[in-house]
């Protein structure tokens, strides 16, 4: 707490140098009363603060900031008079906001914020952070909030922030924003600059803002304005189209990576043994539950490293599910290699068993996962295109899985054996390969891959006993479409199916997209049952 305060003080001094006189000090008691007041007052207070923000002393801003933060974080308690700042929500006592005295919070009420108040408070907090943030990162975060509600923030706030800013990059950003805010300024030169500034950071919102100016009288009368606006609008529109295109590619890629993760293990199992493993979805579910187990172990044993549990879960999920797969193979499937249709029913029974085992022992509710920063949130990359970390995680995960599996198949003795058995079981057996053992290991590998898919899905989907059932039809179609026994075929098929789904969805809706893609695959397979990449073999 001390360090930021000192920085605040330093900043205040700096501010004092640039802006010598304050218009009026903040009425702290009234402000506190507003924040503890009814909905209207809770909006009035923060809005007033933002309006006066350009002129308030740093001290006042810091005071307001403390109160606003406390209110947003449910640490503001409202007794009959004044306001209390609590250290944590529902604490029994707190410091009086004005006097600093410790008072009990028992009889006080904790206000609940509606969306309107929330928006006003968010803007006010952003303003305070922008003006008094101790480091560029805090000020940049404040700026991001202010930018989202630029219409409600007076120019004075931005001017003051710009003048006080020491970080060159941030200063330029604030300048740009201040310029952009002047879209409806009476000064034609500033307007032109504003158009350029808005066009410099393209987005759907920017496009809408510029498009609205087409109705402005100046558009008809002022050729320079018209030219600037048209140029700016064209630039933004182009960027938005590109951004949307990128989003489509990204969405397709992320869907494809999920499909691929779900189908990769199947491709190996089906390609090698001709076994339709209907429990593959449940193996994915088990992988996700193994991940949960790892998380809980971290929580107990190494809470400090909790953020890394997803990585620790990779070998655990792989190993655990591979083991389950090997057990299933050893107990059940090994007796059924000559009867693939019966192995299909057997794996269905296994899937039924696993779902209900998990349901009875752990329960039906969604599991609670801690989401480390690298799998939550996202970053706007270009125009409206946001890269969400959880999807990127899945894409990277799928790519790594692909690489690793190819490595195993192409570069290890097991991989060689697997490929030999896949291509000609009888010949491999004649050559003395232990085909039964290879089957078992390959089944373990395929199951382990499903376990990995479970890890990758944790940040994306809800994890519950039934989560696996949704994958089975899709992933089989991907495997068969790609061509049995061809991992690259599976990849291409996953990309194709994912891309087609994402492309069709905006046109005809999600249901129709799925139907169209599946019907397409069915028709294709009936013309070419061996799929895209399977090698024609002698019967």
């Amino acid at each position, binding site marked *: 707490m001390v360090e930021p305060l000192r920085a605040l003080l330093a900043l205040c001094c700096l501010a004092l140098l640039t802006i010598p006189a304050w218009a009026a000090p903040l009425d702290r008691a009234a402000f506190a009363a507003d924040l503890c007041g009814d909905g209207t007052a809770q909006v009035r207070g923060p809005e007033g603060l933002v309006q006066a923000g350009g002129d308030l002393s740093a001290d006042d801003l810091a005071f307001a900031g403390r109160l606003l933060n406390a209110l947003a974080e449910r640490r503001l308690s409202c007794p009959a008079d004044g306001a209390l700042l609590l250290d944590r929500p529902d604490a029994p006592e707190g410091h009086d906001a004005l006097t600093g005295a410790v008072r009990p919070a028992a009889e006080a009420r904790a206000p609940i914020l509606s969306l309107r108040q929330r928006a006003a408070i968010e803007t006010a907090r952003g303003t305070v952070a922008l003006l008094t943030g101790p480091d560029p990162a805090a000020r940049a975060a404040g700026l991001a909030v202010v930018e989202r509600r630029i219409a409600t923030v007076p120019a004075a706030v931005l001017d003051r922030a710009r003048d006080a800013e020491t970080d060159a990059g941030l200063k330029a950003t604030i300048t740009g924003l201040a310029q952009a805010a002047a879209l409806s300024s009476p000064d034609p030169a500033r307007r032109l600059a504003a158009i350029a500034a808005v066009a410099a950071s393209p987005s759907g919102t920017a496009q809408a803002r510029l498009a609205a100016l087409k109705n402005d009288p100046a558009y008809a009368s002022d050729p320079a304005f018209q030219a600037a606006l048209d140029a700016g609008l064209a630039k933004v529109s182009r960027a938005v189209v590109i951004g949307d295109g990128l989003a489509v590619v990204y969405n397709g890629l992320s869907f494809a990576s999920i499909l691929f993760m779900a189908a990769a293990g199947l491709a190996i199992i*089906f390609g090698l043994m*001709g076994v*339709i493993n*209907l429990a593959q979805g449940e193996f994915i579910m088990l992988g996700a539950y193994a991940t949960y187990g790892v998380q809980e172990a971290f929580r107990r044993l190494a809470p400090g490293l909790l953020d890394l549990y997803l990585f620790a879960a990779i070998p655990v999920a792989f190993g655990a599910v591979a083991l389950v797969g090997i057990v299933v193979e050893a107990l*059940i499937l090994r*007796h*059924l290699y*000559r*009867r*693939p*249709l*019966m*192995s*299909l*029913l*057997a794996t*269905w*029974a*296994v899937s*039924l*068993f696993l*779902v*209900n*085992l998990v349901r*009875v022992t752990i329960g039906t509710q969604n599991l609670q996962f801690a989401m480390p920063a690298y799998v939550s949130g996202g970053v706007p990359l270009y125009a409206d295109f946001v890269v969400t970390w959880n999807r990127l995680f899945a894409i990277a995960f799928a790519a790594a899985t692909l690489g690793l599996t190819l490595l195993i198949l192409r570069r290890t003795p097991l991989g060689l054996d697997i490929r030999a058995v896949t291509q000609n079981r009888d010949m491999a057996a004649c050559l003395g390969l232990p085909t039964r053992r290879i089957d078992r290991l390959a089944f373990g590998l395929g199951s382990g891959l499903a376990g990995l898919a479970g890890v990758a899905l944790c940040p994306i989907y809800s994890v519950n006993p039934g989560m696996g*059932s949704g994958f*089975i*039809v899709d992933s*089989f*179609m991907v495997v*068969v479409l790609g061509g049995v026994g061809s991992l690259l075929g599976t990849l291409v098929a996953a990309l194709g199916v994912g891309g087609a789904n994402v492309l069709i969805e905006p046109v005809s809706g999600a*249901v*129709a997209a*799925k*139907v169209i893609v*599946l*019907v397409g*695959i*069915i*028709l294709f*397979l*009936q*013309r*070419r*049952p061996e799929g895209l990449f399977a090698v024609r073999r002698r*019967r």
Partner: protein
Amino acid sequence: MSGAVQTALAGPAGPARRAVRDPLVAGLVGLCLAAAAGLLVAPPAPYLVNALGQLAAFAILAVSLDLVWGYLGILSLGHGLFFAIGGYVCAMHLLAHGAAVTGVLPDFVQFMGWKSLPAYWAGLDHAPYAFVLALALAGLVAFVFGLASFRSRVNGVYFSIISQALVYVAMLLMYRNDTGLGGNNGMTGFPLLFGWPMGSPGVVTGLAVAALLTLAAILASTRLLVGSAIGRRMLACRDDETRLRTLGYSTTRLKLGIWCLSAMIAALAGILYVPQVGIINPRVLAPDLSIEIAVWVAIGGLGRLGGAVIGAILVNGLKFWLSAAMPEAWPFILSGLVLLVVLVLPNGLLDLVGWRPRPTWLRSSR
């Protein structure tokens, strides 16, 4: 229908003797007739009558699958589709009939904002037309899908996967509200059957008796079929399709004919099922349900029509009972039963009583 099947139906007397020599099927047919007579003479509580009728419908469905799986080696994981076609057309008939008599439009039609039943419902209030339409539609869908698959020699597990995808697509389509057949809620609230109020004891008993008699008829006639020359070709096709083709038989036609026949029997089961449960919705198209049909057949005993009947009645009877008596245990019992049958009793529960009319060499497709 292929010429082959027609020959079978007009087959010589030999197969008939065989059917009589099949004590399992003969016994089951007798049991069905006796049960039907019993229901007419001394009906038990209506809900029991109703449950019995449902079981009979499921048994017909199982027989339809056994016909293609047990005797042709084609495992369809999409038979729920044909069942649903029968069910949906039957539901449409019941609603159209109800609307024609009472003048009140069905719920979902009002919901869709339609002022009357859509044009393609025309005539559905006439039962014979609806009946023929249901069978024809199931046969047509089966024909198109089968023709495409069998001509490209899609078989074995590939056929299973693709047929599963087919039923899945149908499910997605039917869940769509805009498809216009009630979406997720499906169709329900059938007021009348042939002018009688649905749910009255007479109608309940009548439906159950109809289902039992149909089961007996289907069982007897399919037994005749599989005992005929056609049936021998089916077994030959199951065990070595290439061999059969190189002996001059068009297996595509044979498979297509039996496949369509099986689809129509499944549709018949759907027709009998829907008025008894009073609802049809896209859930019957869930891939899981179609797999379950295969489970009934496998548990009872593959390639013996009686086995399918026993399996369907046993599994569903147990399900009715256990899912209420021991809801936690039922899924475990079912999966255990499947594994037991698959691993220990490859010819189904009939192995337990050592009943083997003829060896079934459960050879996989090549």
